[in-house]
């Protein structure tokens, strides 16, 4: 039986985390192909409904990547993202979800290696956690 390959959806900001992912690529750093990257202009434009929808569709992990606090290209987008994701994680944690599947990471444009490490770690941890039970749930 083939090993379970987690599906990670990553909502990343254009200016920092997406650039980091790009740097990982140009530096030829190897990391697992389990991540599907969705580029937004800012982590502050990540509507929590995207994250909930991704989980309900069966995504095994969701990564939200943005600039480090204080370095947001638009000034305060990541501060808002921080509060929104804290609230979302609290709600989902108490509603019976495995909130560890949602990770927020501040990854700057120069941190190509760190992006790769974060994806590798997340993939390994999600393999241990197993598939998201919503992958099979249709009555939702």
């Amino acid at each position: 039986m083939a090993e379970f390959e987690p599906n990670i959806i990553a909502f990343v900001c254009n200016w920092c985390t997406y650039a980091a992912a790009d740097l990982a690529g140009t530096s030829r750093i190897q990391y697992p192909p389990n991540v599907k990257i969705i580029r937004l202009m800012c982590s502050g434009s990540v509507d929590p409904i995207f994250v909930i929808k991704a989980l309900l569709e069966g995504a095994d992990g969701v990564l939200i990547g943005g600039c480090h606090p204080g370095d947001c290209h638009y000034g305060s987008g990541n501060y808002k993202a921080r509060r929104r994701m804290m609230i979302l994680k609290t709600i989902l944690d108490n509603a019976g979800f495995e909130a560890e599947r949602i990770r927020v990471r501040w990854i700057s444009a120069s941190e190509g290696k760190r992006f790769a490490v974060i994806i590798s770690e997340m993939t390994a941890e999600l393999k241990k956690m197993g598939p998201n039970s919503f992958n099979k749930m249709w009555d939702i």
Partner: protein
Amino acid sequence: MKSYRLILKDEDLATGINNFFKRLLAQKVIDTLLVPQDTPDKTSVVQTLVGAGEEIESANPFAPLLLMNSATLVGQLTFDKPGKRIGAVLRSCEIRAAIELAKLKQVNMDNLVIIGVDCLGTYESTTYQESVSSFKDNKALTMDFLSKGAQPGTDAPGRDKLRPACRWCEYPCPENADITINFLGCDIRKEVFIRISEKIDTINPEDLGLVPADDIAKWEDASRLCRDERTKVRDRVFEEVVHRLKDAKSLVKELGRCRRCYNCRRACPICYCRACIFDTVLFEHTYAQYSRWAAKKGKIRMPTDTLLYHLTRMNHMVVSCVGCGQCTSACPNNIPVAEFFKTIGAKVQALFDYAPGRSIEEEIPQATFKEDEFKEFGK
């Protein structure tokens, strides 16, 4: 707040309070009054807006019936800043919701005179109708309900008949009101306390039929007892809900019989959006999308997005949830929506040490941020 006694000489509480409201209007403390009154057949109570020059005859702010959270009505009356002094007779959950709506710019507090009343709880409307048929009318039911439950440590008749949200409401007394009517701990055949905020300096209490109260300890003690009792029930409910929602399957099961009527959203005073995203084109999926989703999971429930709706609504408003329970009362399938929202709401509010409706000065956590906070998050 300055405390006064409304002494009931040769009149019952209902008449006494009715006359108090009459005097508020006559003294021009307010230009109009939003007040619960008996329906013509006296078997139900609804909020009414008293017309200019009209005499109030059947005010009934204590009946154990709350057909909707009046914060929405306060929004309707004040939204376009009419510049008139509007008095609104409200229970604590309604005041707290109105304060949250003011932060959301749906209620305008200028010229609003909040008249808060103590509340021992309410029945579902079907339970109320059954009860009122065994009494003569609203007034008889209300007096029986209050007299047995107004003293601390007593059991309100049919306390088990109260709406669940009322059983675990830890706010029996109104706060942030301009005028309050407090009956807890009082002998309601003789008197109740009326407290008036210093902000209303245009009133002469004598003209309102009030005498100063030296000692309101019996009300303070009774309200503390009530609050402590309810808080214990609330904490038990929180524990039980957290235990019930232990995994994804549990939530799906609890919400499984949702029929997407959106009554919970309509009943919720905090859900004020004129166009909820669930009513927009965002959720008018194409056949192509439906069939793709169906192919991925083998089959999909139709209509889609039931769980997404509840979780999104939770994410949008739970930080301001005042626990009034109108959502559960409105649900045709008896889903205990309020239990989930109040429990999870409390956890989210705790992140920011926030209490909805506690103060108009406190910003809604989702509407603001601090640069220096939650430093460990996202590392």
